[in-house]
């Protein structure tokens, strides 16, 4: 087991990357991923018109809060579809019998697979970002630089989430099982663990992943405005109820007050722009640690 790679190892990793990209782009999962992204974009764009509203007169913050809200979930779906099968498919589909018997280090194969997965996933999400930017230009006359920062964090999130998918892919024997487990881990297990933790959870994958949206000030301001509006109307209602002498109504007022004080039990928190460097580091570390575990398993896996 060696980390050492020379120039020809990197050349071979490049060859694997190229092949993996061609293979993926021609595959059904790529088409499905692209369709998922376009469907999300289409729904967000068209549904306001279908319900009698529209995008005219909306602020950049309003638009971003709609378009970016689903980006992390969409990222995870794409990672589950593409990255979770990257390693296991070589064994399950018996293509390893061709590739692994060639004079190439498994580390080069592994590296090529990481790069191709992240590139393809980033490409799919880049389409979403370009379409979002186009909508912003059309309806608000411009697009903020922070959208690019958001895309940068999206790539880091893809890198980290792909790492988790690679670990699962290295250990299991069936690609379909890998996809389900990846979805379960990324969309349920990690968020539940984060929810159960007390205090600031900046080091958790999903919290750091939220930086995709919280790094955009327009989004943060718009979101906080909505929360403050909600809290203020709640407070108005509570103040009114407090004037009552009926103990039952006072109980309701007390309960509503606790909801406001706890920011809807933590579900409607005032958000801040996080420490971007720290969150970028967290995502990188999650990715590197996960890829390391997956690499150890992958290079030792026997056919």
């Amino acid at each position: 087991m060696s980390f050492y790679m020379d120039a020809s190892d990197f050349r071979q990793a490049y060859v694997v990357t190229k092949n993996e990209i061609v293979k993926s782009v021609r595959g059904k999962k790529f088409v499905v991923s692209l369709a998922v992204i376009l469907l999300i974009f289409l729904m967000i764009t068209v549904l306001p018109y279908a319900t009698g509203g529209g995008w005219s007169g909306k602020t950049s913050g309003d638009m971003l809060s709609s378009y970016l809200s689903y980006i992390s979930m969409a990222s995870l779906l794409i990672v589950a579809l593409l990255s979770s099968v990257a390693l296991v498919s070589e064994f399950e589909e018996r293509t390893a019998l061709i590739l692994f018997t060639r004079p190439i280090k498994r580390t080069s194969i592994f590296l090529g697979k990481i790069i191709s997965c992240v590139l393809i996933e980033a490409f799919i999400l880049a389409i979403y970002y370009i379409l979002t930017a186009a909508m912003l230009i059309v309806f608000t006359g411009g697009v903020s630089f922070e959208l690019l920062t958001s895309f940068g964090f999206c790539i880091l999130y893809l890198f980290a989430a792909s790492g988790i998918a690679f670990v699962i892919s290295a250990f299991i024997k069936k690609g379909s099982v890998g996809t389900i487990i990846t979805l379960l881990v990324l969309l349920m297990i990690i968020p539940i663990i984060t929810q159960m933790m007390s205090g600031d959870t900046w080091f958790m994958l999903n919290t750091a992943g939220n930086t995709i949206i919280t790094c955009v000030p327009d989004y943060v301001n718009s979101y906080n405005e909505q929360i403050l509006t909600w809290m203020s109307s709640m407070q108005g209602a509570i103040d009114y109820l407090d004037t009552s002498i009926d103990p039952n109504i006072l109980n309701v007022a007390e309960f509503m007050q606790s909801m406001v004080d706890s920011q809807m039990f933590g579900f409607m928190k005032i958000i801040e722009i996080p420490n971007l460097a720290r969150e970028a580091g967290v995502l990188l570390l999650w990715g590197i640690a996960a890829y390391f575990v997956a690499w150890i398993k992958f290079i030792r896996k026997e056919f």
Partner: protein
Amino acid sequence: MSSEYPIEIVNLRKEYGSFVAVNDLNLKIKKNSFTGLLGPNGAGKSTSLKILTHLITATSGEAFLNGIDVTKDPRAALTGVGTVIETPEFYPYLTPRETMRYVGEIIGMSKESIRSETEEILEKVKMVEWGDKRLGTFSKGMRQRIALGQALMDEPSIIILDEPTSGLDPRGMVEIREVLKNLRTDSNDLTIVMSSHVLTEVQDLCDRIAMINHGTLLMDDDISAFLTSHGTRSIIAKTAGLPVPELIQRIRDMDYVISADRLGNDIQIIIDDSKEDRQRLFQDISGMNAGVYSIADSDILEATYLDMIKESR
């Protein structure tokens, strides 16, 4: 390591828990030979070949390809080696030409060499007209021809084949054998080792045989020497009904008969490999008037193979 033996296995051992798949195996494959690796299921043939091709790691021992130990430096050892392990699958969205290019680029061939060799190889495996169709639509036989084709990229000096015709229909088997036969005649510097269960295939293609059972080598010799080393011939006598024990005993009692046993509905008779003895047997059995309607050579390789496997149990 001697250059006379491009493939050399030294004290190779592979354990899966308490099960020993390869038991301190020693084997040398002669340069420019076509060696058939024989043995029953679980004998350790595939495991040994998978260690040679770095698909699995050995528990201990060494396996040299062109003098380089694959267990220590697999990348260097596998340079100049083509492999077809079982029936491999290809990326279904690639075409044969793209697959060849992929393999060629991994090996480090130039674009020009890849292009020219791909055409040459597609010609060899008779897949030129399919070169730009996606592999996902190919039959098993066609995919196996492409598998053999990719193994030929960069003119390897060693080809390792693990049951290359397994799972193919008779036509597919014949096609692969044809390609392998042509390989032998086309190349002067090519060492091939092939494991197979099909004894006629081994007899047809190989010039040497190595027999393995329980992970150890039973014998390794030229096929001609192997077939005559026992100096015996197996004859099958077919009777109208089930062969009666008295008939078998009468045959056994003949002074030149080594053994006679019931083999299903037939009688297997082992005699010395001489024309005189065969002639005498034919005359004697005909004279018995015991309902024998056919006397013919049985598959010698099969008989010898079964004998050796039986002995090694």
